Protein backbone atom coordinates (compact mmCIF):
# COMPACT_ATOMS: atom_id res chain seq x y z
CA UNK A 1 0.00 0.00 0.00
CA UNK A 2 2.96 2.32 0.52
CA UNK A 3 3.46 2.50 -3.22
CA UNK A 4 0.37 4.02 -4.70
CA UNK A 5 1.17 3.36 -8.32
CA UNK A 6 3.87 4.34 -10.78
CA UNK A 7 5.63 7.56 -9.93
CA UNK A 8 5.76 9.16 -13.30
CA UNK A 9 6.04 12.62 -11.79
CA UNK A 10 2.27 13.02 -11.64
CA UNK A 11 1.87 15.74 -8.99
CA UNK A 12 -1.38 14.35 -7.58
CA UNK A 13 0.12 10.88 -7.25
CA UNK A 14 3.26 12.33 -5.65
CA UNK A 15 1.14 14.26 -3.20
CA UNK A 16 -0.92 11.20 -2.41
CA UNK A 17 2.22 9.22 -1.77
CA UNK A 18 3.45 11.92 0.60
CA UNK A 19 0.06 12.07 2.34
CA UNK A 20 0.20 8.31 2.79
CA UNK A 21 3.65 8.50 4.34
CA UNK A 22 2.83 11.40 6.64
CA UNK A 23 -0.79 10.82 7.49
CA UNK A 24 -1.78 7.19 7.10
CA UNK A 25 -0.93 6.25 10.70
CA UNK A 26 -2.75 9.29 12.06
CA UNK A 27 -5.78 8.48 9.97
CA UNK A 28 -5.63 4.88 11.17
CA UNK A 29 -5.37 5.99 14.81
CA UNK A 30 -8.48 8.15 14.45
CA UNK A 31 -10.40 5.46 12.58
CA UNK A 32 -9.62 2.97 15.35
CA UNK A 33 -11.12 5.40 17.85
CA UNK A 34 -14.20 6.03 15.73
CA UNK A 35 -14.80 2.44 14.68
CA UNK A 36 -13.58 0.74 17.83
CA UNK A 37 -11.94 -2.09 15.93
CA UNK A 38 -8.41 -2.50 14.56
CA UNK A 39 -9.30 -4.67 11.60
CA UNK A 40 -12.29 -2.63 10.54
CA UNK A 41 -10.17 0.53 10.79
CA UNK A 42 -7.38 -0.92 8.65
CA UNK A 43 -9.86 -1.95 6.01
CA UNK A 44 -11.41 1.52 6.12
CA UNK A 45 -7.99 3.16 5.77
CA UNK A 46 -7.31 1.04 2.73
CA UNK A 47 -10.68 1.96 1.20
CA UNK A 48 -10.18 5.65 1.95
CA UNK A 49 -6.87 5.74 0.07
CA UNK A 50 -8.38 3.78 -2.78
CA UNK A 51 -11.12 6.40 -2.99
CA UNK A 52 -8.48 9.15 -2.94
CA UNK A 53 -6.62 7.53 -5.84
CA UNK A 54 -9.85 7.56 -7.82
CA UNK A 55 -11.20 10.95 -6.85
CA UNK A 56 -8.29 13.32 -6.22
CA UNK A 57 -6.99 13.34 -9.82
CA UNK A 58 -10.46 14.50 -10.99
CA UNK A 59 -11.66 16.62 -8.08
CA UNK A 60 -8.33 18.00 -6.94
CA UNK A 61 -6.53 17.53 -3.64
CA UNK A 62 -8.82 18.43 -0.72
CA UNK A 63 -7.86 21.31 1.52
CA UNK A 64 -7.53 19.04 4.54
CA UNK A 65 -6.43 15.68 3.19
CA UNK A 66 -6.40 14.01 6.58
CA UNK A 67 -9.93 15.03 7.49
CA UNK A 68 -11.04 13.95 4.02
CA UNK A 69 -9.45 10.53 4.50
CA UNK A 70 -10.92 10.04 7.98
CA UNK A 71 -14.33 10.96 6.70
CA UNK A 72 -14.03 8.75 3.61
CA UNK A 73 -12.77 5.87 5.75
CA UNK A 74 -15.69 6.24 8.10
CA UNK A 75 -18.25 6.23 5.32
CA UNK A 76 -16.59 3.20 3.76
CA UNK A 77 -16.75 1.42 7.11
CA UNK A 78 -20.44 2.25 7.47
CA UNK A 79 -21.06 0.91 3.96
CA UNK A 80 -19.19 -2.23 4.70
CA UNK A 81 -20.99 -2.75 8.02
CA UNK A 82 -24.34 -2.26 6.31
CA UNK A 83 -23.43 -4.73 3.59
CA UNK A 84 -22.37 -7.26 6.18
CA UNK A 85 -25.38 -6.56 8.38
CA UNK A 86 -27.52 -8.32 5.79
CA UNK A 87 -25.93 -11.44 7.24
CA UNK A 88 -25.49 -10.31 10.83
CA UNK A 89 -28.27 -8.15 12.20
CA UNK A 90 -26.23 -6.96 15.19
CA UNK A 91 -24.02 -4.91 12.87
CA UNK A 92 -26.94 -2.75 11.73
CA UNK A 93 -27.00 -0.98 15.09
CA UNK A 94 -23.28 -0.24 14.98
CA UNK A 95 -23.60 1.16 11.47
CA UNK A 96 -26.56 3.31 12.50
CA UNK A 97 -24.74 4.64 15.55
CA UNK A 98 -21.67 5.50 13.45
CA UNK A 99 -23.87 7.21 10.90
CA UNK A 100 -25.81 9.26 13.44
CA UNK A 101 -22.56 10.40 15.08
CA UNK A 102 -21.57 12.07 11.84
CA UNK A 103 -23.40 15.32 12.62
CA UNK A 104 -20.53 17.58 13.57
CA UNK A 105 -17.78 17.29 11.02
CA UNK A 106 -15.53 19.46 13.15
CA UNK A 107 -15.25 16.73 15.76
CA UNK A 108 -13.56 14.51 13.20
CA UNK A 109 -10.24 16.25 13.34
CA UNK A 110 -10.00 17.12 17.01
CA UNK A 111 -8.06 14.80 19.30
CA UNK A 112 -6.01 13.58 16.38
CA UNK A 113 -2.72 13.84 18.21
CA UNK A 114 -4.35 12.11 21.14
CA UNK A 115 -5.42 9.35 18.80
CA UNK A 116 -1.82 8.58 17.92
CA UNK A 117 -0.94 8.51 21.59
CA UNK A 118 -3.94 6.27 22.27
CA UNK A 119 -2.73 3.92 19.56
CA UNK A 120 0.74 3.68 21.11
CA UNK A 121 -0.62 3.07 24.61
CA UNK A 122 -3.06 0.45 23.37
CA UNK A 123 -0.35 -1.39 21.43
CA UNK A 124 1.88 -1.30 24.53
CA UNK A 125 -0.83 -2.32 27.00
CA UNK A 126 0.73 -4.45 29.75
CA UNK A 127 -2.03 -7.04 29.38
CA UNK A 128 -0.41 -7.99 26.05
CA UNK A 129 2.75 -10.07 26.03
CA UNK A 130 5.98 -8.15 25.53
CA UNK A 131 6.52 -9.80 22.14
CA UNK A 132 3.03 -8.86 21.05
CA UNK A 133 3.52 -5.26 22.19
CA UNK A 134 6.59 -4.86 19.99
CA UNK A 135 5.04 -6.56 16.96
CA UNK A 136 1.80 -4.63 17.25
CA UNK A 137 3.54 -1.27 17.72
CA UNK A 138 5.75 -1.81 14.68
CA UNK A 139 2.80 -2.94 12.60
CA UNK A 140 0.11 -0.46 13.64
CA UNK A 141 2.07 2.61 14.70
CA UNK A 142 5.11 2.35 12.41
CA UNK A 143 3.45 0.65 9.43
CA UNK A 144 6.17 -1.97 9.07
CA UNK A 145 4.99 -5.08 7.23
CA UNK A 146 4.80 -8.43 8.97
CA UNK A 147 7.74 -9.60 6.83
CA UNK A 148 9.87 -6.61 7.83
CA UNK A 149 9.19 -7.20 11.52
CA UNK A 150 9.99 -10.89 11.10
CA UNK A 151 13.27 -10.12 9.34
CA UNK A 152 14.28 -7.58 11.97
CA UNK A 153 13.73 -9.93 14.90
CA UNK A 154 14.82 -13.10 13.10
CA UNK A 155 11.54 -14.89 13.67
CA UNK A 156 9.30 -16.54 11.08
CA UNK A 157 6.71 -14.26 9.48
CA UNK A 158 3.79 -16.57 10.40
CA UNK A 159 4.83 -16.25 14.07
CA UNK A 160 4.68 -12.47 13.83
CA UNK A 161 1.36 -12.61 12.00
CA UNK A 162 -0.02 -14.89 14.70
CA UNK A 163 1.17 -12.61 17.50
CA UNK A 164 -0.51 -9.64 15.86
CA UNK A 165 -3.76 -11.48 15.26
CA UNK A 166 -3.79 -12.77 18.84
CA UNK A 167 -3.03 -9.34 20.25
CA UNK A 168 -5.81 -7.73 18.23
CA UNK A 169 -8.31 -10.33 19.33
CA UNK A 170 -7.28 -9.85 22.94
CA UNK A 171 -7.79 -6.10 22.57
CA UNK A 172 -11.27 -6.77 21.23
CA UNK A 173 -12.31 -9.62 23.50
CA UNK A 174 -10.92 -8.37 26.80
CA UNK A 175 -11.90 -4.82 25.81
CA UNK A 176 -8.53 -3.17 26.27
CA UNK A 177 -9.47 0.50 26.21
CA UNK A 178 -8.32 2.76 23.39
CA UNK A 179 -7.14 5.57 25.60
CA UNK A 180 -4.24 7.29 27.24
CA UNK A 181 -4.11 6.01 30.81
CA UNK A 182 -5.27 8.18 33.67
CA UNK A 183 -2.83 10.42 35.51
CA UNK A 184 -2.40 7.88 38.33
CA UNK A 185 -1.66 5.04 35.95
CA UNK A 186 0.46 7.00 33.52
CA UNK A 187 3.86 6.63 35.20
CA UNK A 188 3.47 2.85 35.26
CA UNK A 189 2.19 2.64 31.71
CA UNK A 190 4.59 5.10 30.10
CA UNK A 191 7.44 2.85 31.23
CA UNK A 192 6.10 0.12 29.02
CA UNK A 193 5.88 2.42 26.02
CA UNK A 194 9.41 3.73 26.54
CA UNK A 195 10.66 0.18 26.94
CA UNK A 196 9.07 -0.96 23.69
CA UNK A 197 10.51 2.02 21.84
CA UNK A 198 13.96 1.40 23.28
CA UNK A 199 13.74 -2.29 22.42
CA UNK A 200 12.90 -1.41 18.84
CA UNK A 201 15.83 1.00 18.77
CA UNK A 202 18.29 -1.49 20.25
CA UNK A 203 17.22 -4.18 17.84
CA UNK A 204 18.22 -1.83 15.05
CA UNK A 205 21.31 -0.49 16.77
CA UNK A 206 23.12 -3.38 18.41
CA UNK A 207 22.83 -5.79 15.52
CA UNK A 208 25.59 -4.23 13.45
CA UNK A 209 26.11 -7.58 11.74
CA UNK A 210 23.35 -7.32 9.20
CA UNK A 211 23.42 -3.53 8.83
CA UNK A 212 20.50 -4.16 6.51
CA UNK A 213 18.09 -1.44 5.60
CA UNK A 214 15.35 -2.77 7.85
CA UNK A 215 17.52 -2.64 10.94
CA UNK A 216 18.50 0.92 10.28
CA UNK A 217 14.82 1.55 9.66
CA UNK A 218 14.08 0.27 13.16
CA UNK A 219 16.29 3.00 14.64
CA UNK A 220 14.55 5.59 12.50
CA UNK A 221 11.15 4.31 13.57
CA UNK A 222 12.15 4.30 17.22
CA UNK A 223 13.45 7.87 17.09
CA UNK A 224 10.36 8.93 15.17
CA UNK A 225 8.18 7.43 17.93
CA UNK A 226 10.42 9.08 20.51
CA UNK A 227 9.92 12.47 18.84
CA UNK A 228 6.18 11.92 18.70
CA UNK A 229 6.05 11.01 22.37
CA UNK A 230 8.12 14.06 23.33
CA UNK A 231 5.72 16.26 21.39
CA UNK A 232 2.79 14.73 23.21
CA UNK A 233 4.20 14.09 26.66
CA UNK A 234 7.43 16.00 27.33
CA UNK A 235 8.40 14.58 30.72
CA UNK A 236 12.07 14.01 31.62
CA UNK A 237 12.12 10.29 30.91
CA UNK A 238 10.53 10.71 27.49
CA UNK A 239 13.03 13.47 26.68
CA UNK A 240 15.76 11.22 28.08
CA UNK A 241 14.90 8.27 25.87
CA UNK A 242 14.83 10.43 22.75
CA UNK A 243 18.13 12.10 23.68
CA UNK A 244 19.69 8.70 24.36
CA UNK A 245 18.59 7.36 20.99
CA UNK A 246 19.75 10.45 19.09
CA UNK A 247 23.15 10.46 20.80
CA UNK A 248 23.65 6.75 20.12
CA UNK A 249 22.48 7.15 16.55
CA UNK A 250 24.93 10.04 16.02
CA UNK A 251 27.81 7.56 16.33
CA UNK A 252 26.52 5.09 13.77
CA UNK A 253 28.91 6.20 10.97
CA UNK A 254 31.91 5.66 13.27
CA UNK A 255 30.88 2.41 14.93
CA UNK A 256 32.09 0.02 12.27
CA UNK A 257 34.79 -0.08 9.62
CA UNK A 258 33.76 -0.32 5.98
CA UNK A 259 34.47 -4.04 6.36
CA UNK A 260 31.84 -4.22 9.12
CA UNK A 261 34.31 -4.55 12.00
CA UNK A 262 33.39 -3.10 15.35
CA UNK A 263 35.15 0.11 16.45
CA UNK A 264 35.10 0.77 20.20
CA UNK A 265 33.98 4.17 21.46
CA UNK A 266 37.54 5.08 22.49
CA UNK A 267 38.85 4.40 18.99
CA UNK A 268 36.07 5.96 16.96
CA UNK A 269 36.83 8.79 14.54
CA UNK A 270 34.76 11.48 16.19
CA UNK A 271 34.73 13.64 13.08
CA UNK A 272 32.34 11.03 11.65
CA UNK A 273 29.78 11.58 14.41
CA UNK A 274 26.62 13.26 13.24
CA UNK A 275 26.82 16.80 14.66
CA UNK A 276 23.18 17.59 13.93
CA UNK A 277 21.93 14.64 15.99
CA UNK A 278 24.40 15.48 18.78
CA UNK A 279 23.18 19.07 18.93
CA UNK A 280 19.58 17.88 19.13
CA UNK A 281 20.44 15.31 21.81
CA UNK A 282 22.45 17.76 23.90
CA UNK A 283 19.65 20.31 23.77
CA UNK A 284 17.26 17.69 25.15
CA UNK A 285 19.70 16.82 27.94
CA UNK A 286 19.80 20.53 28.81
CA UNK A 287 16.01 20.53 29.10
CA UNK A 288 16.16 17.49 31.39
CA UNK A 289 18.81 19.10 33.60
CA UNK A 290 16.60 22.15 33.93
CA UNK A 291 13.75 19.93 35.16
CA UNK A 292 16.05 18.41 37.81
CA UNK A 293 14.18 15.14 37.60
CA UNK A 294 16.15 12.10 36.55
CA UNK A 295 15.20 8.53 35.76
CA UNK A 296 17.00 5.65 34.07
CA UNK A 297 16.69 6.98 30.52
CA UNK A 298 17.56 10.58 31.31
CA UNK A 299 20.61 9.42 33.30
CA UNK A 300 21.80 7.21 30.45
CA UNK A 301 21.26 10.14 28.10
CA UNK A 302 23.38 12.29 30.42
CA UNK A 303 26.22 9.77 30.16
CA UNK A 304 25.91 9.68 26.38
CA UNK A 305 25.96 13.49 26.43
CA UNK A 306 29.29 13.57 28.29
CA UNK A 307 30.79 11.33 25.60
CA UNK A 308 29.25 13.37 22.81
CA UNK A 309 30.63 16.61 24.23
CA UNK A 310 34.20 15.26 24.61
CA UNK A 311 36.70 16.11 21.90
CA UNK A 312 38.49 12.79 22.38
CA UNK A 313 38.36 9.64 24.51
CA UNK A 314 41.30 10.93 26.57
CA UNK A 315 39.59 14.24 27.32
CA UNK A 316 36.40 12.54 28.53
CA UNK A 317 35.21 13.63 31.97
CA UNK A 318 35.29 10.14 33.51
CA UNK A 319 34.69 11.43 37.03
CA UNK A 320 31.37 12.85 35.90
CA UNK A 321 30.47 9.61 34.12
CA UNK A 322 31.23 7.56 37.25
CA UNK A 323 29.05 9.96 39.27
CA UNK A 324 26.13 9.57 36.87
CA UNK A 325 26.49 5.77 36.91
CA UNK A 326 26.17 5.93 40.68
CA UNK A 327 22.88 7.81 40.33
CA UNK A 328 21.78 5.29 37.70
CA UNK A 329 22.58 2.42 40.08
CA UNK A 330 20.25 3.99 42.59
CA UNK A 331 17.48 4.66 40.05
CA UNK A 332 17.69 1.33 38.23
CA UNK A 333 20.09 -1.11 39.87
CA UNK A 334 21.38 -3.90 37.66
CA UNK A 335 24.63 -5.88 37.34
CA UNK A 336 25.09 -4.55 33.79
CA UNK A 337 25.03 -0.96 35.07
CA UNK A 338 27.55 -2.00 37.72
CA UNK A 339 29.76 -3.43 34.99
CA UNK A 340 29.58 -0.18 33.03
CA UNK A 341 30.36 1.78 36.15
CA UNK A 342 33.41 -0.45 36.74
CA UNK A 343 34.63 0.29 33.22
CA UNK A 344 34.26 4.01 33.87
CA UNK A 345 36.11 3.67 37.20
CA UNK A 346 38.93 1.93 35.29
CA UNK A 347 39.16 4.98 33.02
CA UNK A 348 39.15 7.36 35.98
CA UNK A 349 41.38 5.50 38.46
CA UNK A 350 43.28 3.03 36.28
CA UNK A 351 42.70 -0.61 35.24
CA UNK A 352 43.53 -2.15 38.65
CA UNK A 353 40.68 -0.29 40.33
CA UNK A 354 38.28 -1.36 37.59
CA UNK A 355 39.46 -4.96 37.67
CA UNK A 356 38.78 -5.29 41.40
CA UNK A 357 35.17 -4.21 40.79
CA UNK A 358 34.69 -6.49 37.78
CA UNK A 359 36.10 -9.47 39.66
CA UNK A 360 33.84 -8.86 42.63
CA UNK A 361 30.91 -8.62 40.22
CA UNK A 362 31.81 -11.85 38.41
CA UNK A 363 32.23 -13.58 41.76
CA UNK A 364 28.56 -12.84 42.47
CA UNK A 365 27.71 -15.02 39.51
CA UNK A 366 24.92 -12.98 37.89
CA UNK A 367 26.96 -12.01 34.84
CA UNK A 368 28.68 -15.32 34.14
CA UNK A 369 26.67 -15.84 30.94
CA UNK A 370 27.08 -12.23 29.78
CA UNK A 371 29.86 -12.06 27.17
CA UNK A 372 30.63 -8.36 27.71
CA UNK A 373 31.47 -9.06 31.38
CA UNK A 374 34.18 -11.49 30.29
CA UNK A 375 35.54 -9.22 27.56
CA UNK A 376 35.64 -6.31 30.05
CA UNK A 377 37.55 -8.53 32.47
CA UNK A 378 39.86 -9.60 29.63
CA UNK A 379 40.48 -6.03 28.55
CA UNK A 380 41.46 -4.88 32.04
CA UNK A 381 43.78 -7.89 32.51
CA UNK A 382 45.33 -7.12 29.12
CA UNK A 383 45.99 -3.54 30.14
CA UNK A 384 47.61 -4.78 33.35
CA UNK A 385 49.85 -7.20 31.43
CA UNK A 386 48.11 -10.30 32.82
CA UNK A 387 48.17 -12.01 29.45
CA UNK A 388 47.13 -15.52 30.53
CA UNK A 389 44.05 -14.30 32.42
CA UNK A 390 43.16 -12.00 29.54
CA UNK A 391 43.34 -14.87 27.06
CA UNK A 392 41.14 -17.12 29.22
CA UNK A 393 38.49 -14.41 29.57
CA UNK A 394 38.50 -13.54 25.86
CA UNK A 395 38.02 -17.24 25.08
CA UNK A 396 35.08 -17.40 27.49
CA UNK A 397 33.57 -14.27 25.90
CA UNK A 398 34.03 -15.80 22.46
CA UNK A 399 32.10 -18.91 23.52
CA UNK A 400 29.15 -16.79 24.65
CA UNK A 401 29.04 -14.25 21.80
CA UNK A 402 26.56 -14.69 18.97
CA UNK A 403 27.27 -11.55 16.99
CA UNK A 404 29.73 -11.83 14.10
CA UNK A 405 31.37 -8.39 14.55
CA UNK A 406 31.75 -8.98 18.30
CA UNK A 407 33.40 -12.32 17.57
CA UNK A 408 35.78 -10.83 15.03
CA UNK A 409 36.70 -8.13 17.52
CA UNK A 410 37.53 -10.65 20.25
CA UNK A 411 39.47 -12.83 17.81
CA UNK A 412 41.51 -9.79 16.80
CA UNK A 413 42.30 -9.08 20.46
CA UNK A 414 43.29 -12.72 21.00
CA UNK A 415 45.59 -12.45 17.99
CA UNK A 416 47.23 -9.34 19.47
CA UNK A 417 47.85 -11.20 22.73
CA UNK A 418 49.77 -13.86 20.82
CA UNK A 419 51.95 -11.20 19.17
Amino acid at each position, binding site marked *: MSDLGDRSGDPVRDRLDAVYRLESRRVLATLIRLLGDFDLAEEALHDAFRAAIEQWPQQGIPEQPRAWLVSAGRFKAIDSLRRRSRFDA*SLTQIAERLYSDLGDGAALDEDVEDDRLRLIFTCC*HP*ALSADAQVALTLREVCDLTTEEIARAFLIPAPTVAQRIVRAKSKIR*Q*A*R*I*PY*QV*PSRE*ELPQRIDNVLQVIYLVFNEGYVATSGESLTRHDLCCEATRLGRLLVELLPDPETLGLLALMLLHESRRPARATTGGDLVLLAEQDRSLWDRRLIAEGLALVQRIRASRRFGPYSLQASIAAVHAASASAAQTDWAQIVAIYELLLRADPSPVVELNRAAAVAMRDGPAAGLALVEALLARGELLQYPLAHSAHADLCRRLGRTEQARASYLRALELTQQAPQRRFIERRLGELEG
Partner: protein
Amino acid sequence: MKYACLIYDDEKLFDAMPKDEVDAILGEYFALSDELGQSGHLLGGEALMPVSSATVVRVRHGRTSTTDGPYVETKEQLGGFFLIEARDLDEAIRIAARIPSARFGSVEVRPVMEFER
Protein backbone atom coordinates in the same frame (compact mmCIF):
# COMPACT_ATOMS: atom_id res chain seq x y z
CA MET B 1 -18.93 -5.86 30.06
CA LYS B 2 -18.74 -8.78 32.47
CA TYR B 3 -15.43 -10.08 33.78
CA ALA B 4 -14.71 -13.06 36.00
CA CYS B 5 -11.94 -12.44 38.50
CA LEU B 6 -10.60 -15.88 39.33
CA ILE B 7 -8.75 -15.85 42.61
CA TYR B 8 -5.79 -18.17 43.06
CA ASP B 9 -4.22 -18.68 46.46
CA ASP B 10 -1.68 -20.89 48.09
CA GLU B 11 -3.90 -22.72 50.59
CA LYS B 12 -0.88 -23.74 52.68
CA LEU B 13 -0.10 -20.06 53.17
CA PHE B 14 -3.50 -19.55 54.78
CA ASP B 15 -3.11 -22.68 56.92
CA ALA B 16 0.18 -21.34 58.23
CA MET B 17 -1.20 -17.86 58.92
CA PRO B 18 -2.19 -16.80 62.46
CA LYS B 19 -5.96 -16.65 62.93
CA ASP B 20 -6.13 -12.88 63.40
CA GLU B 21 -4.35 -12.32 60.07
CA VAL B 22 -6.76 -14.63 58.28
CA ASP B 23 -9.64 -12.75 59.93
CA ALA B 24 -8.20 -9.43 58.81
CA ILE B 25 -8.02 -10.63 55.20
CA LEU B 26 -11.56 -12.01 55.37
CA GLY B 27 -12.66 -8.65 56.72
CA GLU B 28 -11.08 -6.95 53.71
CA TYR B 29 -12.91 -9.37 51.42
CA PHE B 30 -16.26 -8.57 53.04
CA ALA B 31 -15.63 -4.84 52.90
CA LEU B 32 -14.62 -5.00 49.23
CA SER B 33 -17.66 -7.06 48.24
CA ASP B 34 -19.95 -4.64 50.13
CA GLU B 35 -18.38 -1.66 48.38
CA LEU B 36 -18.45 -3.26 44.91
CA GLY B 37 -22.03 -4.35 45.54
CA GLN B 38 -23.10 -0.80 46.34
CA SER B 39 -21.27 0.70 43.34
CA GLY B 40 -22.95 -1.83 41.07
CA HIS B 41 -19.73 -3.50 39.97
CA LEU B 42 -20.31 -6.79 41.75
CA LEU B 43 -22.63 -9.25 40.04
CA GLY B 44 -21.75 -12.25 42.14
CA GLY B 45 -18.96 -14.29 43.62
CA GLU B 46 -18.15 -17.01 46.07
CA ALA B 47 -15.26 -18.39 48.03
CA LEU B 48 -14.61 -22.06 47.45
CA MET B 49 -13.92 -24.84 49.95
CA PRO B 50 -10.31 -26.11 49.89
CA VAL B 51 -9.19 -28.20 46.90
CA SER B 52 -8.93 -31.21 49.21
CA SER B 53 -12.73 -31.25 48.98
CA ALA B 54 -12.72 -31.18 45.16
CA THR B 55 -13.82 -33.98 42.86
CA VAL B 56 -13.03 -33.97 39.16
CA VAL B 57 -15.64 -35.36 36.81
CA ARG B 58 -14.94 -36.49 33.25
CA VAL B 59 -17.16 -38.29 30.78
CA ARG B 60 -15.25 -40.26 28.16
CA HIS B 61 -16.91 -42.61 25.70
CA GLY B 62 -20.10 -42.35 27.70
CA ARG B 63 -18.48 -43.43 30.97
CA THR B 64 -18.32 -41.11 33.91
CA SER B 65 -15.12 -41.17 35.91
CA THR B 66 -14.55 -39.25 39.10
CA THR B 67 -11.17 -38.59 40.65
CA ASP B 68 -9.65 -36.68 43.46
CA GLY B 69 -8.69 -33.17 42.27
CA PRO B 70 -5.12 -33.13 40.99
CA TYR B 71 -4.79 -29.45 41.89
CA VAL B 72 -3.68 -29.95 45.49
CA GLU B 73 -0.11 -30.34 44.34
CA THR B 74 0.04 -27.10 42.32
CA LYS B 75 1.37 -24.03 44.07
CA GLU B 76 -1.78 -21.91 43.76
CA GLN B 77 -5.33 -23.15 43.67
CA LEU B 78 -8.57 -21.58 42.57
CA GLY B 79 -9.99 -20.33 45.84
CA GLY B 80 -12.93 -18.25 44.73
CA PHE B 81 -14.20 -15.79 42.17
CA PHE B 82 -15.88 -12.45 41.67
CA LEU B 83 -18.14 -11.75 38.75
CA ILE B 84 -17.92 -8.04 38.03
CA GLU B 85 -19.26 -5.47 35.61
CA ALA B 86 -16.60 -3.09 34.26
CA ARG B 87 -16.37 -0.56 31.46
CA ASP B 88 -13.18 -2.04 30.03
CA LEU B 89 -10.15 -4.11 30.96
CA ASP B 90 -8.44 -1.22 32.74
CA GLU B 91 -11.37 -0.80 35.11
CA ALA B 92 -11.51 -4.57 35.64
CA ILE B 93 -7.78 -4.59 36.44
CA ARG B 94 -8.22 -1.73 38.92
CA ILE B 95 -10.91 -3.72 40.72
CA ALA B 96 -8.96 -6.99 40.57
CA ALA B 97 -5.92 -5.27 42.05
CA ARG B 98 -7.99 -4.48 45.16
CA ILE B 99 -8.83 -8.13 45.81
CA PRO B 100 -6.72 -9.03 48.87
CA SER B 101 -5.37 -12.24 47.31
CA ALA B 102 -3.78 -10.21 44.50
CA ARG B 103 -1.14 -9.28 47.10
CA PHE B 104 0.00 -12.82 47.88
CA GLY B 105 -1.68 -15.05 45.28
CA SER B 106 -2.91 -14.02 41.85
CA VAL B 107 -6.13 -12.94 40.20
CA GLU B 108 -6.90 -13.91 36.63
CA VAL B 109 -9.22 -11.49 34.86
CA ARG B 110 -11.25 -13.14 32.13
CA PRO B 111 -13.93 -11.49 30.03
CA VAL B 112 -17.18 -13.41 30.15
CA MET B 113 -18.38 -14.73 26.84
CA GLU B 114 -21.79 -13.54 25.83
CA PHE B 115 -23.94 -15.74 23.65
CA GLU B 116 -26.76 -14.62 21.47
CA ARG B 117 -29.69 -16.94 21.74
